[in-house]
Structure formats: C-alpha cells, structure tokens
C-alpha cells in the first residue's frame, strides 16, 4: 500500500500538469473524449484492454471514413483526444514499470509530454489548431529557432515546483524499493545517498534562485564529476 502511494506521489506532477491542460480545453467536439477514453482504457487492466482495442479501431475507422467524405472535425477531435491522453497513458505505464531506470525515464517522458501539451494547448484549446501548434513547436526546435524543447508557456511554477519536490523524494524512495516483494530498507547506505541527494537538490534550488543562468553548468559539472568518480571506483577487479 505504502509502495503504491509512493508511486502515485512520484507521478503526480505530470498528472497535475495534464489535468491543468485538460481543464482549459474545449470538449465541445465529443470525439476528443472518445479518443481520450479509448487510449486510457487500452493502457488499463488486461481484462479491459481487449474491449478497448475495439474502442480504438471502431472510432478510428469511422472518423477516417468521415474524413474521406469531407468531414474533418471528427478525425481531428479523435486525434486530439489521443494526444491529450498521451501524458496520462505514459504515467500509467510508468506506474507499472519494474525497473528503476524505467521508472525514471517514464517519469521524464510523462513530465515532458505534459509540459509540451500544456504549452501548446495554452495557445489554442481547439482540436483543429492543436496539431498545428504541436508541429510548429517541434519544427521550431529542430530548425533551431528555439533552444529549449519546453514551450514558453509553463504551468504556475510555485505550485508545480513544490509538487515536483515532493514527487522527487517519492521517486527516489520508489526507485530504491522497486523490487517486488521487498519492503523498503532504510540502511545507512540508502540514508546517506538520500541525504546527499536532498542536499544537492537544496543547493541547486538556491543556485537556481540566485544564479539561474548558472544552473545548467553547475548541474552538468556535478553529474560529470559524479559519473567519473563512479566509473573510477568501480574499475577494481572482483575477488
């Protein structure tokens, strides 16, 4: 139970950002809801999954048929629903991830996708224009008009930063207790590493607050040094 609660807490930021994005979206096109529900169901339990496959294919074929007859709105609504549901689907799959690396990469992907949709969707809450802005955002990054992949429109930082801080703590604990059947063990090694990471987070937050332009450089340097130290310490041969 505790492990489940920790996992949910760890994945709360992408969910919160997605819900904030959805709150401002125009759901007058019901195909958006259909798209979202079918995609969410497909990543649900095994029993519901096969029913959801039908829920994905039937509307998809139907809307393609309508598109061919000149009605583009249902097709666009369905596709928009898929896109809007993608951070939540990624979150669900991350929740059931068994490895620490899978948990970390899933968390990152879900977080980034929700930020992307929030930033794009902020400009237009209509399914028809969601695509255009999404593609524009990606092409502008590829053509190097922008350096940052995250759109300029971001959720309120105060709220998300607090939530992310708590989620990070939960994420770290979840990473360490990922083995099924094994309860969380607070051993000196784990505790020391946890304290070190919390301390580094505190220092980095202060750097980000007072010297925001130095954050990236400081983080990169620290990570490279840590990776080097790890590689050096592990080079010894076994007995």
């Amino acid at each position, binding site marked *: 139970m505790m492990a489940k609660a920790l996992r949910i807490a760890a994945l709360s930021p992408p969910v919160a950002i997605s819900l904030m994005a959805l709150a401002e979206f125009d759901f007058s096109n019901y195909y958006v809801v259909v798209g979202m529900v079918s995609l969410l169901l497909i990543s649900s339990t095994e029993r519901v999954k096969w029913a959801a496959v039908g829920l994905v294919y039937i509307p998809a074929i139907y809307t393609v048929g309508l598109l061919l007859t000149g009605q583009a709105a249902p097709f666009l609504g369905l596709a928009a629903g898929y896109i809007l549901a993608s951070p939540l689907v990624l979150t669900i799959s991350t929740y059931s991830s068994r490895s620490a690396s899978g948990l970390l990469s899933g968390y990152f992907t879900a977080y980034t996708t929700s930020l992307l949709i929030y930033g794009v969707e902020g400009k237009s809450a209509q399914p028809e224009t969601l695509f255009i802005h999404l593609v524009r955002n990606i092409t502008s990054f590829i053509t190097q008009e922008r350096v940052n992949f995250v759109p300029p429109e971001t959720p309120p930082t105060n709220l998300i930063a607090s939530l992310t801080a708590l989620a990070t703590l939960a994420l770290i604990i979840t990473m*360490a207790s990922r083995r099924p059947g094994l309860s969380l063990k607070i051993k000196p090694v784990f505790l020391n590493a946890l304290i070190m990471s919390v301390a580094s987070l505190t220092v*980095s937050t202060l750097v980000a607050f007072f010297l925001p332009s130095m954050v990236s450089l400081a983080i*990169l340097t620290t990570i490279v040094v840590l990776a080097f130290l790890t590689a050096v310490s592990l080079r010894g041969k076994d007995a």
Partner: protein
Amino acid sequence: MLTREGYALALTSFLLSALTSTIVIYHPLTLSMFAAAVFSFMYILMASRELRSLKPKDFTFTRTVSNQDPKPGERVAVKVVVVNKAGRDLELVVVDGFEGLTLVEGNVVVEKHVKHGEEAELQYVVEADRRGVYSLGPLVVKVSDDFGLCCKYITLEREARLLVRPRLVEKPRLMDSVRRAQALSISGSGFSVKFGADDVFREITEYEEGQPLKNIEWRRTAREDGQIYVRKYDKLNRLRVVFLIDCTVSNMVGKPSLMDTTISSVASTALALLQKGDAVAVKALGAAEPATFYAYNTVDFEGLNTFLTKLKPGLGFDLKKEVEELSWFDAVFLVGRLSSVDGHELRLVENDVRRRKGVLFTIIPVLSDGSEVMRLLNELEMLRIKKVKKQAEFVSVVRHTELPQYLAYLHRMLRAVP
C-alpha cells in the same frame, strides 16, 4: 561492478540530467532529475564500497559429490552449501559451473537472501557420456546490494576435477561369435616365457566361474557337500604385455567412440592381467600428449586407469619408432583403426617384435552397422583393411562391441599356449 540494472540507472539518470539541463529546461524538472541522478550515483558509490569489503573468507562452503568414481553414463549428484559468515544479511546468487558434463537435473544457480549464519544450497545432477577429465566449478558467489544495482563476484573455488574413468567389463565372457569368427592371429613365433610352467601351489579356495577345471581339488570337493574347491597357484613367470593404443583423431568415430571402447577394453584386460600377476604397459600412440604407463601389480591399476582416463586424441605417430622405444614385452597388443599405418609398416613392426622374441596381436575394431551411412562407412573401412591385410595377413578385425571379449580371449589363449 554494476549490474545491468545499475548500468541502466546510471546511464539513464546521467542522460536525463544532461538533457534537462541543456535542451529540455524546466527548472522543477531539471532539479528533480538532478536529485535523482545524484541519488543514483551516490548510492552506487556507497553500496559498491560496502560490497568491496567482502572477502572470500566471509563465506564457508562445501561441495559434496555423490559418485566419486563415475563411469560414462553414470549420474553424479552434486550438492553445494555456502554459508554466510559476513556478519550481516546478504543478497546472494550462488553459481556453480561445470565443463563438458551434461546437466540432468536441478539448477546450477540459486538466488537467496541469506542472513548471517544461514546457508544457500545448490543441488544438481550431471553426467558424462564418455570418459575423460571434467571439471566442476568455479564456484562463484555474486553478492548484490539490496536493490540489485551493483554486485561483487567472489570466487570460492576455482575448479575441482572430476575423472570419468573408462567402464570396465567385469569377467568378460567369450562370445560365440568371437570364438567362431576369429582365427588365431598371433604374429611371431618366439615365446620368451614358458607360460604356466612354473606354477607354485598357494592355497585352496572356493571355485569361481571362469577358473580352469583342471585346478579343481577333487579330494576336498568330495568331502564338502555341493561346494567345489580349486587349487590356486602363483606363477613364477610374469608375462609382460604391452598395449599400443591408436589415439589419433581418426578413432573418434562412433558413439561411444572407437577410442573410448578400445580404452575400456584395454583397462578391463589390463586389470585381469595384473590380477594374474602379469606386468602391463600402455603406450598411447598419437595422443595429444603421448606417454607410456607401466603397471606391475594391481596397486598400479589406479594410476593406469587415470592415465587412460586422461588420454586425448592427437594427430599421428611413427609406429616403427614407437615399437623400437619399448623397453620390454612378451606380447604386444596393437589396437585401433591404424588409419595412418600401411601393411608394409605393420610387417616391419611384426618382424621387429618377433626378432625381440615377442608376440604381436594387431586388432582393428570396426563399428556395428547401425544406419545406411554407417554401413557405407564400414564397407569403405573394410576395403582399407583388406588392402592392409594383403601385406599383413595377421591383422584381426573385431566389432567394437566384441573387443573386450576378444582381448580376454587372446589373453586366455596366450596363457594356454604351451
């Protein structure tokens, strides 16, 4: 060292941290990834440091083998027990290895959370389908941290040798087919020993199957009700028998191979000879490590058997030179396919043996006709042997299944020659 999961986590956290501080910049996410990366690296560093303090002396182990003297096809049950003496709980994976053997039952890997003083047990059964030197081990313990991110391998034992000795034929009986088909194939006329001439009475014992009827002690037998007694004699003359085994790779055909069958037969016959008081020498012709082993009594048989067990096939040999190097013999058994020897060379060797007052038996074992391919191969082999026999008519051809009986037959016949 890192486990696969440890590598994946270190790499993922490094890349994500680099990504979120360069091209996917959102400060809460960036800091979050940074904290996760710091935790990952710090944990790996500290856990590996803790694991490094473990030494082989932190474990005790025993490996029990059920069959100390296995024969080809016999099963060997192995039980390995590793006890944690590290003074703390450990996540252990015990791995035992084996080389050349076949795993029949069980598992050579066990994963267990072991408290101090507790043990991890491993049980498995292996077998070897041919004689040879095999190995059990190395016995390795993999100790990992609680979360399986880093581990340390500790080798508790390098390798333990397992000798699978040739299967001996107990009391080989003379098969009718052998008796009927094989003519006396003795080459040479000089006998240096007067066989059985100088028997000295030793004791009277109960009769055992295979003992000569002429030795029955009739007086004692008549006194006892239903029990037959025989006289036993010590032979003052000792027969010196040399086995020359063709150990070239051409003898590796068949299953079991001709070489293995030959070795088993030679071992059985050598034991019978030693028990009768004869001296035996075995010379491996063309083996990977050519050598000669001399056995003078039954105590030496253990060494002879080990010598035979370790024989590995090689490339070729010079038969004439090998025979010239022999220091003594009364009878020489040359056994194997002899694919690298022609009839002329055999004839020269035969002359050499005769000149040195010995007897030469040349035996070529052939495989039984199992399949169509085997039948064709046998036909080719017989053509080759026929060509050899044109120059060396004393060569005997025996089915490999009948080789032990045939060698026993030759041995008895040798003893019976006046």
